[in-house]
């Protein structure tokens, strides 16, 4: 089929052609970026925390009228309150293990600092080294959270100490995540080396490395050190406490229900509410709610856009078919086959959509660059744009098929009728 008659006919519908190409271009630009945002969010939400997340839950509670934790005696008092809770929780049926912990991945409450291979840098006025988050727990942290130890060993019960919440002393032993260990010791020989926490002058020895453990915050400011975690064998004593609990397989809900009554029984002078006992699933849900919401919103908008554009193509082509009834009849009478008429409209659409996607690719890249300069956004991979182009052309063909087939069914006798 020659393109010449199609182009000549399109020139008669300049405005319509320009509008439909523009619509296709805008749709492509927006849908590409929307799908890219969806892809990024899905990737973010699906990254593993490094924890065995099933059968895991977290208890947060606060004691009423507890001592301040500023002096040694009150710290001992707080620690005994915590140990009593731990003993009660560990004795519950359905509980496999319990670890006291200051925070867990995705909880959005963190203690962050920096570790370095050299001691004391405080004279410069700020922490130098590699950023990390700190998890303070005991020897039960690894089995309870289901962390995967790739080198070295876990803490022993005898190595676990305790200190006040605002006490800045660093522990003498630490377990690091492998990514943090590799960053500090690029040769991969972190095990057994010493590091200094927060510009401290006292060394901490690395006795183990876990494969992966995410930081508690998911906000973008933590993206530089998402996998840098330092675990200290220290129970923190404050007027509040958190316990990570692993239930026996399949007994999560039943075990979670036992917690509040059991803790009130040990000591009623404490504050707990609906959020005090939360499964890790709930914590994950909450942490990524904004990301999921954004992905859903972008999905809805992209879907509406594609429907509107497809329907627009159907509508406009239908009109053109109706308008050209007589010409189609003439062509049929002169010997054009049905398939020729069908192809005519399909090729016409391909030309219009082709022009649209060419502009659309430029708009998509432009929009992406604009989003990159104004918001946190990365460069859109070529694959997204190419897939978008192919999808747009396919949608155009699908949308044009019904009116084009109707056109091909116009009988040659139309040529003899008045328009």
């Amino acid at each position, binding site marked *: 089929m020659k393109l010449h008659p199609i182009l000549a006919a399109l020139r008669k519908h300049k405005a319509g052609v320009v509008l439909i190409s523009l619509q296709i271009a805008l749709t492509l630009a927006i849908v590409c*970026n929307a799908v890219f945002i969806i892809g990024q969010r899905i990737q973010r939400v699906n990254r593993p925390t490094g924890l065995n997340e099933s059968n895991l839950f977290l208890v947060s509670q606060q004691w*009423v009228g507890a001592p301040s934790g500023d002096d040694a005696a009150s710290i001992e008092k707080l620690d005994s309150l915590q140990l009593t809770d731990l003993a009660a929780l560990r004795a519950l049926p359905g509980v496999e293990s319990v670890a006291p912990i200051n925070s867990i991945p995705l909880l959005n409450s963190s203690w962050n600092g920096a570790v370095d291979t050299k001691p004391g840098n405080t004279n410069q006025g700020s922490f130098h080294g590699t950023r990390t988050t700190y998890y303070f727990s005991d020897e039960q942290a690894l089995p309870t959270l289901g962390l995967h130890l790739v080198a070295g060993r876990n803490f022993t019960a005898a190595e676990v100490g305790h200190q006040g919440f605002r006490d*800045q002393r660093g522990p003498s032993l630490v377990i690091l995540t492998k990514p943090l260990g590799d960053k500090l010791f690029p040769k991969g020989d972190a095990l057994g080396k010493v590091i200094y926490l927060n510009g401290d002058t006292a060394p901490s020895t690395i006795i183990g490395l876990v494969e992966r453990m995410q930081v508690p915050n998911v906000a973008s400011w933590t993206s530089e050190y998402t996998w840098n975690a330092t675990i200290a064998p220290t129970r923190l004593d404050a007027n509040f406490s958190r316990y990570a609990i692993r239930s026996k397989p399949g007994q999560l809900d039943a075990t979670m229900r036992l917690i509040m009554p059991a803790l009130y029984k040990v000591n009623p002078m*404490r*504050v707990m509410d609906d959020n005090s006992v939360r499964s890790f699933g709930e914590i994950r849900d909450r942490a990524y709610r904004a990301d999921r919401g*954004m992905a859903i919103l972008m999905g809805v908008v992209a879907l509406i856009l594609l429907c509107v554009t497809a*329907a627009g193509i159907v509508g406009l082509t239908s009109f053109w078919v109706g308008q050209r009834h007589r010409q189609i009849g003439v062509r049929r009478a002169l010997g054009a086959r049905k398939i020729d008429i069908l192809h005519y409209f399909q090729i016409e659409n391909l030309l219009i959509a082709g022009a649209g996607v060419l502009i659309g690719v430029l708009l998509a890249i432009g929009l992406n660059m604009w989003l990159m300069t104004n918001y946190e956004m990365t460069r859109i991979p070529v694959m997204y744009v190419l897939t978008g182009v192919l999808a747009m052309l396919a949608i155009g063909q699908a949308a044009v098929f019904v009116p084009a087939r109707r056109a091909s069914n116009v009988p040659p006798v139309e040529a003899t009728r008045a328009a």
Partner: protein
Amino acid sequence: MFSYYLELALRSLRRSPGLTALMVLAIGFGVAASMTSLSVFRAVSGDPIPWKSSKLFVPQIDIWGPSGRRQGGDNEPQDAMDYTDAMALMRDHRAKYQSAMYQISPSVVPANADQHPLNVGGHAVFSEFFPMLDVPFLYGSGWSADDDAQSAAVVVISSKLNEKLFGKTNSVGKTVNVEGHDYRVVGVLDNWNPQPRFYDVVNTGGFSEQVEDVFIPFQRAIAMGIPNDGNTNCNETPKESGFVGMQHSTCIWMAYMVELDDAAAVTAYRQYLDGYAREQQQAGRFTWAPNNRLRDLPAFLELEQVVPSDTKVSLLVALGLLLVCLVNTVGLLLAKFLRRSGEIGVRRALGAPRKAIYLQFLTEAGVIGLTGGVLGLLLTGVGVASIGLVLPKSISDLARLDLSLLIFTLVLAVVATLLAGLYPTFRASRVQPAWQLKSN
């Protein structure tokens, strides 16, 4: 004449129901998507205290100096305060009203022994906090400057906590047990929950689900060792341990706000801040030149990027959707109007001026716009109601439909469709009657 055009429009729209439905749906969805995201955007970017925000200022002092700044970043000083400097500013008392504040999360023990203790959120503030922010009271009022000075055991509670502890009665004068100590209620707030939490953005991040249930005098909270529940950022390890150690450190954990009523007061306060920083430099505490900021509230909220970038991107994408829907409508109207060239030719030949053609076709576009707008209203209602399913509660709770949004939705739909109808109508009015009549 208008009713005639209306009749013509309805007749024409009925003749091609599929196409009419398509245009109405496109306008409806486009408008609804824009309005839903606008309702969220408006909720998070709104001025929380419009009548006063230009008089409220947040002083920033360069507490950490050059070493505390991001490398390659700007010269922006810290956005929160340490204890030492906040107290010095309070002592100097140079603004009309001022208050240092920090977030607390104490426990409250109900008098009824059957009830478990509850955890409440709130702030430790100075007495001027209440008049400065025009805090509304249901009963009583804030406390006095004397109460500040004496670290009095007084408390202002929310109407919600009042209801929980005392039923719906006036509890002023009664006592509330906060962290094991009795506090006398001096005031009950009248449903005050500003979003964003503009007086303490650094600790709340702007939007907070946690309700502010208690306010206690700052000095009292410090004296009782009620620790801060918000963020703490340290540039160096505090030399002493505990909450007291933090008060002696350069760690920043406090918000600070002042009211300055006119330009002269702003200039004077700026000079005061620079003078203060220079004094600290001379005293050897700061080893760098004064580097202060004094932004009014809207500028500070902008600096803190209170409006989530997701909200802005969503609004942008939704507006893009509306644009595509409009382009779609232009194309369809164009095809529809030009198909009636014969009819236009007859009308023009019978003496109808161009103006009449304009009116006729714009009426048709207007009808589509209005119908699309009504559909858009319904869909916006659905959108705003279901936004809570996908967005975090702290934000989705703020988005609501009100009369102005409803009117705006309708107006937007009609105006946008009329604009979309302009070019097709222009083309229709250019139809040459002679040519049309001949060709038929």
